[in-house]
């Protein structure tokens, strides 16, 4: 804490009167407010009372040693910069002091320049530390406020615009000619995409801060896959793509949230439909061993260039670049990756240009409780 005049506040604890006075003079002249104490107890009392920014503490004193004082002050006074003054500076004692929370040490004898330099450097260090702390707190707060901010400030206007478009079509739709109708439809589509983007963004932040609602239960992946496939069949039919599944009869159970897993599958199958040409095929294949279940989703699409492959799970990354005709939030695969991670699983991709892309989802299967009890693995 700075004193009333705004000067940084330094405490000196040393049993040598000459040294106390000398340091005091030098530091006061350099623009600091200085307090001194002759021994440990008094020094700690002063420190607790005045909360200095920095303290110089002699290592060797009667009663309480400098080392103990350092330990106490670094615990009691947040952000205080502690420097040990020592007549027999050994590496061992210096290291010990640093471990106890000292910032640096000052070997005797020292001259005024050394003292001033160390005081300045120590206080700078303190300011940086405080600033870093403040920024970290601010960052955490911003992250926490982000979700609320996005939902209120970004979603509400989008909702209202959509509602106005609905109203516009309702009250005057039959009077619009083709061009006007098309303009309105395009606006609606773009707003809808933006709304989806905000929605996905929110989902991802929720997964990150742990507020994404998931109900993890024991379930079988074949029900998830059939649900997802059922959902995607109309899109595939529309695009002239066939959707095949290849799932073994009896799959081990996994622990998962059905809703978010269906979203993962429909997302990946949906992506596949965007890149697979008419007449193409998407194949969902499931394999398992004792520990893992792998589900691969393979398309016969355009494929992803090798240099872009590592980036596709990054937020807002798009293979096709800016003029891509495929719309999407650019967050779909990021969402899938986060969901897979929250299921202790993973997602991988392989691709060959011109031949197609395969995504592989790996889930840990539930260990059979019977087997677990017997302790047998193989």
């Amino acid at each position: 804490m700075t004193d009333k005049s705004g000067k940084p506040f330094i405490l000196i604890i040393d049993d040598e009167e000459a040294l106390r006075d000398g340091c005091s003079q030098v530091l006061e002249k350099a623009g600091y407010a200085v307090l001194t104490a002759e021994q440990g107890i008094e020094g700690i009392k002063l420190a607790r009372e005045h909360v200095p920014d920095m303290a110089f503490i002699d290592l060797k004193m009667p009663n309480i040693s400098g080392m103990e004082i350092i330990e106490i002050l670094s615990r009691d006074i947040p952000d205080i910069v502690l420097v040990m003054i020592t007549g027999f500076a050994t590496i061992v004692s210096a290291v010990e002091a640093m471990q106890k929370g000292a910032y640096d040490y000052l070997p005797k004898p020292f001259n005024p320049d050394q003292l001033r330099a160390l005081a300045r450097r120590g206080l700078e260090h303190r300011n940086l530390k405080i600033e870093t702390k403040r920024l970290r707190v601010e960052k955490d707060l911003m992250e926490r406020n982000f979700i609320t901010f996005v939902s209120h400030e970004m979603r509400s206007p989008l909702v209202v615009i959509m509602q106005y478009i609905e109203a516009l079509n309702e009250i005057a739709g039959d009077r619009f000619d083709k061009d006007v109708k098309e303009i309105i439809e395009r606006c609606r589509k773009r707003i809808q995409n933006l709304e989806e983007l905000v929605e996905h963004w929110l989902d991802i932040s929720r997964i990150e801060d742990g507020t994404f609602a998931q109900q993890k239960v024991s379930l079988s992946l074949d029900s998830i896959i059939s649900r997802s496939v059922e959902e995607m069949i109309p899109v595939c039919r529309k695009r002239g793509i066939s959707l095949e599944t290849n799932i073994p009869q009896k799959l081990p159970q996994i622990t998962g949230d059905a809703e978010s897993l269906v979203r993962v599958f429909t997302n990946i199958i949906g992506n596949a439909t965007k890149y697979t040409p008419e007449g193409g095929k998407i194949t969902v294949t499931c394999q398992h061993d004792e520990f893992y279940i792998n589900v691969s989703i393979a398309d016969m699409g355009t494929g992803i260039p090798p240099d872009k492959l590592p980036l596709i799970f990054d937020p807002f990354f798009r293979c096709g670049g800016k003029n891509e005709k495929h719309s999407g939030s650019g967050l779909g695969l990021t969402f899938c990756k986060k969901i897979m991670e929250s299921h202790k699983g993973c997602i991988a991709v392989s691709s060959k240009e011109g031949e197609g892309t395969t995504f592989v989802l790996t889930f840990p299967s539930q260990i059979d409780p019977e087997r677990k009890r017997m302790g047998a693995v193989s």
Partner: protein
Amino acid sequence: MTIKKKILLIDDDKDFLFATKLILEKGGYEVFMAEDGKTGVEMWKSVTPDLAIIDMMMETWGEGFEVLNKIRSTDTGKETPLFMLSAVDLQGPYNSFEPPPEFPKVNKVLQKPIKADDLLNYIAKALGSK
């Protein structure tokens, strides 16, 4: 001339009120709007609408539910169809709100934004079955 059915809209977003009012008027209803819960409850008593649509989260979270409670506890509010509007943001990913069993009856929970056709259909259904 048939008398138009009356619908009360309670939502703190002026634009949302206006847009929805346009849709409802086109659907042949007489529309009353309230921008906050207190006004909403007062209008409920003075207007005695055939149906009310209440935003779940107005100024404060829960205000919509308070309004619902107050309306349901009035004489005219026991059987009148009441819709609630939900913004997805507090509901997590599943976009749904399930009122607890002891909760006053909500006839329909609508998601914002709501398609004009859907809105008019739900209302017609709710009013027709009365």
